[in-house]
């Protein structure tokens, strides 16, 4: 009796662990049956490139959610970092350049964009750690403020005519692989290792699993919260750079509602909104599911209105099918 229960538990566990992966595979198979174009290498690279921005954000968001937090500011921080980075990457010969007399090497816009993300994240983290207000409110505040700052900085206009070296980040390829994919893979791998193999990662799970226990074990919870939100901010900053270089233009309206897609990716991928549970691999699969949906529905020529209905239904269905019910009550 004991034994058969354990066996059953094991297969259940397997599906529980990789359920969403199987569902993803199922979607891919279905798509490739419905549309012959789907499985072409070019199109598959498309899908991954299209989720690279959401994926970057979602890595940070996953970490935040594991600590029982939430980050609504990602999309706005992305926009702020995009306009700041773009402003330092304009072509020297462009007439309406923002800083007409400054021509700086590529590293400057990149660092500037990342720095913006880091700063926004750190501010949010400090507020959450020190004042104990709900992350929902703190990041909602940053969501509004960062969008305002992006508009002020750019005066509401796109910052365009960017250098081709900058555009390479979003549009270039290395060995045939689009550069944004490389950025995503590298950052996802780093985040994965960070979460699974470092003290920092252990503390992320510990804080989310039981904050009291973390305190009692001598972990400086406040410090780590600041670090976690800072890291998430940094990833939003990088996403801003990738997105602006992808469209050759830094715009203050970029990334609206991206935070929702990022949170959805994490939750679809099994991260619990109650904290303590979550994996980067799951999140990336979650993002891929959303990406395959967007791509596939376009390939299938589903009408714009109906796309929404299909997309909503499939997201819900995927999570229902996935065995890991109850991965968070929210």
């Amino acid at each position, binding site marked *: 009796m004991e034994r058969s229960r354990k066996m059953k538990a094991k297969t259940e566990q397997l599906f529980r662990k990789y359920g969403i992966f199987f569902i993803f595979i199922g979607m891919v198979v279905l798509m490739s049956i419905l549309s012959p174009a789907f499985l072409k290498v070019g199109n598959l690279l498309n899908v991954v490139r299209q989720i690279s921005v959401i994926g970057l954000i979602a890595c940070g968001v996953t970490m935040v959610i594991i600590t029982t937090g939430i980050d609504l500011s990602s999309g706005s921080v992305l926009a702020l970092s995009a306009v700041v980075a773009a402003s330092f990457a304009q072509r020297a010969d462009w007439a309406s350049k923002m800083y007409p007399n400054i021509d700086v090497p590529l590293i400057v816009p990149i660092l500037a964009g990342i720095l913006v993300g880091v700063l926004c994240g750190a501010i949010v983290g400090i507020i959450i750690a020190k004042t104990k207000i709900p992350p929902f409110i703190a990041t909602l505040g940053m969501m509004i403020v960062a969008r305002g700052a992006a508009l002020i900085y750019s005066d509401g206009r796109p910052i365009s005519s960017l250098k081709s070296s900058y555009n390479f980040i979003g549009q270039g390829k290395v060995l045939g692989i689009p550069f944004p994919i490389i950025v995503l893979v590298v950052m996802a791998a780093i985040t994965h290792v960070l979460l699974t*193999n470092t*003290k920092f990662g252990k503390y992320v799970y510990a804080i989310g*699993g*039981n904050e*009291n226990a*973390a305190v*009692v074990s001598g972990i400086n919870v406040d410090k780590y919260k600041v670090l976690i939100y800072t890291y998430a901010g940094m990833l939003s900053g990088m996403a801003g750079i990738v997105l602006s270089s992808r469209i050759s233009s830094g715009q203050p309206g970029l990334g609206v509602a991206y935070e929702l897609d990022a949170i959805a990716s994490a939750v679809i991928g099994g991260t619990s909104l109650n904290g303590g549970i979550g994996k980067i691999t799951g999140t990336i699969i979650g993002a891929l599911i959303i990406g395959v949906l967007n791509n596939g529905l376009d390939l299938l020529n589903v009408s714009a209105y109906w796309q929404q209905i299909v997309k909503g239904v499939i997201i819900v269905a995927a999570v229902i099918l996935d065995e890991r019910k109850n991965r968070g009550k929210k």
Partner: protein
Amino acid sequence: MTNDYILEMENITKEFPGVLALDDVQLKVRRGTVHALMGENGAGKSTLMKTVIGIHQPTKGTIKWKGKEVVIENTNHALSLGISMIHQELSPIPYMTVAENIYLGREPVNKFGLVDHKKMEKDTEELLKRLDIEIDPKAKMAELSIANTQMVEIAKSISYNSDLIIMDEPTSAITEKEVDNLFKIINKLRSEGVAIIYISHKMDEIFKISDEITVFRDGKYIATELAENLNHDKLVQLMVGRELKQVFHKEEAEIGDVILEVKNLTRKGYFEDVSFNVRRGEILGVAGLMGSGRTEVMECIFGVTPKDSGEIFINNEKVDIKTPEDAIKHKMALLTEDRKLTGLYLMLSVEDNMIIANIDEYKKGIFLDKKKINEACEEGIEKLSVKTPSKEQIIGNLSGGNQQKVLIARWLLTQPDILILDEPTRGIDVGAKAEIHKLMSKLAQQGKAVIMISSELPEVLGMSDRIMVMHEGRKTGELMRGDATQETIMHLATGKKQ
């Protein structure tokens, strides 16, 4: 005994908003001794310990550590001084492994700065082996029973190699076997010169293990005595401030007809083929080791979990109970084993906690009748002498004993005929325990049937008319009050047939 104090706390006062938890108390602990800290629920024991481990700062007072005055800033500081603690509230991180929990905050790293999982697991394995605890270091905490969770906490506190280990109710969730093991560990530590502060509501443990005893009452220091100079009654008197003689208030009740009959109840993987009955006026004790399936049987009867097969009769009529709602309609009540998990609404008021199970009684049209609710609550508070400033108090702010009383009041308000009490006195002080026992007797006298699960054999022996014993999901026997002894129960509980 030497006068070599490792910890000296003097004139400690601790205020919380609206509560004076500690009022000018003292505590002095010698090296190489076990110092018991005793007091009723809410006496301030845990609060004092939290000032030692750096979770709270005392409002006033001094702490001397190894003769030197210190201000313990936070837990990290305390750990580095050589103080560790088993917390009363078990606080595992559910989705992390045993090893990760034990080494949280001091994970071994390899030369790349990455956590060395292998070493961590090996160290854990060695530690657990040394302490004679059989748990897989790679198991997730969420998969462990409460007992094993507690054993992990014990192992963790010891793994710091501290000079002082505080144990705040370390045995609240473990059985005799593990307690014996713990005591072996404590004796060894003591012989190595480690000091231990031991807090428990179980009197026999105190006299078995402690060298010295300090007693608090209502946040005030009462006395410190050598254990050998005290006995049960004297200690209780110090704690409650009055005499409290008899331990078990078992009173005779008239035993009537069978009210609940369970036949061949099975829930695969949890328990199998369990049959028993209980009569009006009877207290049926249910004994067994941890994980023997007692809780599961009762939850299944109450409709919390589904059964696979078997029948349930109430007053000789077959009933189909699918949900607790059905069970309550059949005049059953279940006081669950884990107060926090399945009993309390921590952030709601005493009143809301009390009326939730029979709210239909207080309806006037579609609204609730405040007056009826008031009356019911006041009755509940009075009947069980719940110590609370008001019924609007958030129940999370009450002591554990008082929380338990509110839960009992909740079920009494439903006017049940069959009361199932799962570990009704866990973590509860002697005074409150006696009151709960008295109440059980009274309920039996009123013709109600009481089923009591308890892991404390003296309680089972003292209170039951009849005792059912379980082992690994099966009923192994039944003993009448006169026939039962610790030995006969343990015999059945370890799986030997009657």
